């Protein structure tokens, strides 16, 4: 059927023009369209979360709390945290780019459960709308961490509604994880062995494991907070026989691994981008692949490092610190292997590569300052100060969002069929890098001096560094606005992209059209080469069996 329509117009059939009604988008089962739907959703929540960030930095531009009331300020950092963590960072790369490219990368026509995939988007959007309603209807001021007994017995506002929103988005995350695990296990094309998989797929596999195993814990934990609020059952409130520290154990049991849900997909993107633009197989492929799994597994055993000063036993602290140092090693392995990939490569300084280099520079600072926090005695001094704020923004924004921007610029031609202006994109990458460092580096210094996080006002002597941080944030904001402008511009005016504009290896570039066919592959490819086979440019990554007789008259276009 598809082949018939393909011949009727002048344009080849692709996933965008196959149907164009609104219903065809809202009811789509195509992983690529669901990826685009997610991309629109996370862009919306990223924008809302950024507005809250702007309000925070404006308030902190002066020591006194003079722009808004303390309650408003507390709601602002809660909005910022809730939207950015649950509705942007966690779904960002997996649900948008993972959905879009993962099936293509492994030679599949779709994910294993397309309906579950669409359902996950609806859970995500309903959860997001509920949380936004809660935030608009007076807001909540618990912080994204929802610590008890403040959240369960003291905080006013729509805490329970926000929790239901987060609960739903948690399920969307679980659905995506299940889908990818099954897809990677069962739907790889013939010849696509585990060690021929692109490293992005390995990273998504590790991420999905965490999503499936960790998310139910936070979902139940937050639901218990809502139960305590609604029915007065003392689970976490000590006045009713509960234990507030129990909440922290349960919360961080998910929320620390969640950090790896945010960064592992980014690491996968960086492996793809550095390999493509260095025209070289990722150095130490097996080490990079297994380091993703090591992070996913050890990452489940380090949650107690958020609680070194809460009064948990000293021995527990020592064990959690030890494991935290261990989980740092796989990230170091990846970083050195990426450098070795550039070494003796053939480096093309295109925009995605600049974002990837920016990722390396910022992620390494985020990672290394993790050592200060993994180490027990310095952690006690630095925990809950701006040092922690700076550290996790270097990992989450400098790492995960830099990688997200690299992914956006890398796969944009495949998604939209258009090229964006390279020089503008490079300028934006540079602005983000500079603006980011100006914003967050001073926060390390403030944190070491002891400035607590979530403070609406602060002592006068910390004014200059805070002002610098706020000034940097405005550059950072412009650095994020710029791509929004030129990417939208490119949809109409951008140069038409060729099938493989970067000269990359991999099924999604070598075989799949720009724009992709609704089923990605008209015939199932047989994979014959490992990922990133730049050393053998004459060998295609996949071959196709001779077409069946019934197909000959149909379309006859081989990839």
């Amino acid at each position, binding site marked *: 059927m598809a082949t018939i329509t393909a011949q009727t117009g002048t344009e080849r059939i692709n996933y965008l023009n196959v149907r164009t009604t609104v219903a065809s988008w809202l009811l789509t089962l195509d992983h690529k369209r669901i990826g685009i739907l997610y991309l629109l959703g996370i862009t919306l929540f990223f924008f809302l979360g950024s507005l809250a960030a702007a309000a925070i930095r404006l308030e902190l531009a002066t020591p006194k709390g003079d722009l808004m009331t303390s309650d408003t300020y507390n709601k602002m950092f809660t909005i910022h945290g809730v939207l950015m963590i649950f509705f942007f960072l966690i779904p960002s790369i997996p649900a948008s780019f993972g959905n879009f490219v993962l099936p293509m990368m492994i030679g599949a026509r779709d994910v294993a459960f397309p309906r579950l995939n669409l359902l996950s988007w609806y859970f995500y959007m309903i959860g997001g709308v509920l949380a936004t309603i809660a935030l608009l209807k007076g807001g909540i001021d618990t912080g994204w961490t929802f610590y008890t007994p403040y959240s369960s017995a003291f905080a006013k506002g729509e805490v329970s509604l926000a929790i239901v929103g987060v609960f739903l988005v948690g399920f969307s995350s679980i659905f995506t994880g299940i889908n990818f695990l099954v897809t990677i296990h069962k739907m790889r094309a013939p010849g696509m062995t585990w060690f021929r998989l692109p490293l992005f797929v390995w990273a998504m596999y590790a991420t999905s494991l965490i999503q499936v195993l960790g998310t139910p814990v936070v979902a139940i934990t937050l639901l218990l907070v809502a139960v305590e609020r609604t029915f007065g059952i003392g689970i976490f409130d000590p006045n009713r026989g509960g234990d507030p520290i129990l909440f922290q154990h349960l919360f961080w049991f998910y929320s620390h691994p969640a950090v790896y849900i945010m960064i592992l997909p980014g690491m996968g993107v960086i492996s793809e981008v550095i390999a493509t633009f260095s025209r070289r197989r990722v150095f130490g492929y097996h080490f990079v692949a297994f380091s993703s799994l090591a992070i996913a597994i050890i990452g489940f055993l380090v949650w107690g490092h958020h609680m070194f000063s809460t009064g948990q036993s000293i021995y527990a602290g020592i064990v959690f610190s030890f494991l935290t140092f261990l989980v740092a090693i796989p990230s170091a392995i990846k970083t050195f292997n990426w450098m070795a990939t550039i070494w003796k490569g053939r480096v093309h300084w295109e925009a995605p590569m600049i974002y990837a280099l920016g990722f390396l520079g910022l992620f390494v*600072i985020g990672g*290394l300052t993790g050592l200060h926090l993994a180490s027990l*005695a310095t952690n*006690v001094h630095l925990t*809950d100060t701006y040092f922690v704020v700076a550290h996790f923004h270097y990992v989450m924004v400098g790492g995960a969002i830099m990688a997200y921007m690299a992914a956006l610029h890398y796969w944009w031609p495949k998604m939209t069929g258009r090229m964006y202006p390279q020089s503008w994109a490079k300028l934006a990458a540079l602005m983000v890098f500079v603006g980011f460092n100006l914003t967050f580096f001073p926060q390390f210094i403030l944190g070491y001096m002891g400035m607590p996080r*979530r403070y609406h006002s602060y002592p006068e002597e910390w004014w200059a560094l805070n002002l610098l941080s706020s000034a940097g944030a405005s550059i950072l904001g412009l650095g994020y606005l710029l791509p929004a402008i030129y990417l939208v511009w490119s949809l109409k005016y951008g140069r038409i992209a060729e099938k493989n504009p970067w000269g990359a290896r991999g099924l999604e570039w070598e075989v799949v059209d720009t724009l992709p066919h609704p089923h990605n592959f008209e015939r199932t490819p047989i994979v014959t080469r490992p990922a990133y086979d730049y050393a053998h440019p004459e060998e295609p990554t996949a071959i196709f069996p001779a077409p069946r007789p019934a197909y000959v008259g149909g379309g006859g276009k081989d990839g």
Partner: protein
Amino acid sequence: MWNIPFFPPTASKEGEAISTLYWTITWLAIFFGAIVLFGAIYLAVKYRASNEAVRRDDAVETDLRLELGWTLIPLVLALAIFGWSAKLYGDIYAPREGAYEVFVVGKQWMWHCQHPNGIRENNELHLPAGRLVKVTVISQDVIHAFSIPAFRVKRDAVPGRYNTVYFTPTQPGKYHLFCTEYCGTKHSEMIGWVYVLPSEEFQQWLAKGAGGAGAAAVGLSLEEQGKQVFEGVGACNSCHMNPNAAVKAPDLRGLFGSKVKLADGRTVVADEAYIRESILNPGAKVVEGYQPVMPPYQGVLSEEQIIQLTAYIKSLAKEQPAGGK
């Protein structure tokens, strides 16, 4: 605005050690960070596509020696830092003898500090230089955190739980006191000052009663205040240590620090946490041979009064129980 500090003052013995550790990690981080950041840029420039003057034909796809090198060297360094930091962690959190004891209660949104001689301060804490200090913190409502950056110490004030932290102030001066665990509307106003006084001056301050604006002079010591609660608002003496009481209640003399046999067969040590729980929720741990008849004091006594009561019960530890044990 232009008086810009870049480092916090370092005013405790433990803080000096933690500061040395901090800077060691920082210099290691700068070293490795520079290798990655400048290394990656250098390589990306040197091996740019247009540069044909570099050798690429000898490139390999993996190298076990390199992989082992950049796995093991960071691992060894990480474990060394781990061991060092664990030792310092014990110094501030593990129990130590001979400390000057201060009790701190956090509540929305103030710090309430009690000295052993009965002096109480709000949002101010006076401490002697050169002497080990033990701070016991608890919260009356939500979780707070008691943080003194100049000493590099911090301890969460958790409702229902005594936490302790140890440090030795060295430099006399005035230092920031913060709440670092988000606790609601006025979290950023839950701040105060720590004054470190030279030993003699501190003794004078203690004797004088109240120097600072936040301090309240009370003639009675902490245990004397506890005795007042015991006999007054708590009315504990209507049963405990009352030979004429209708209800048989355990004798509290010699109790603190001893082992207590419970009705369910368990044995517990009578420490601060046990005494607190037995006041607020007496049914949780009933002493062997007694009936669970004591009313719970949850919501009746404030955390300050419980600390005073505990100090009084502690002072009874030296006395012998009436009937012997």
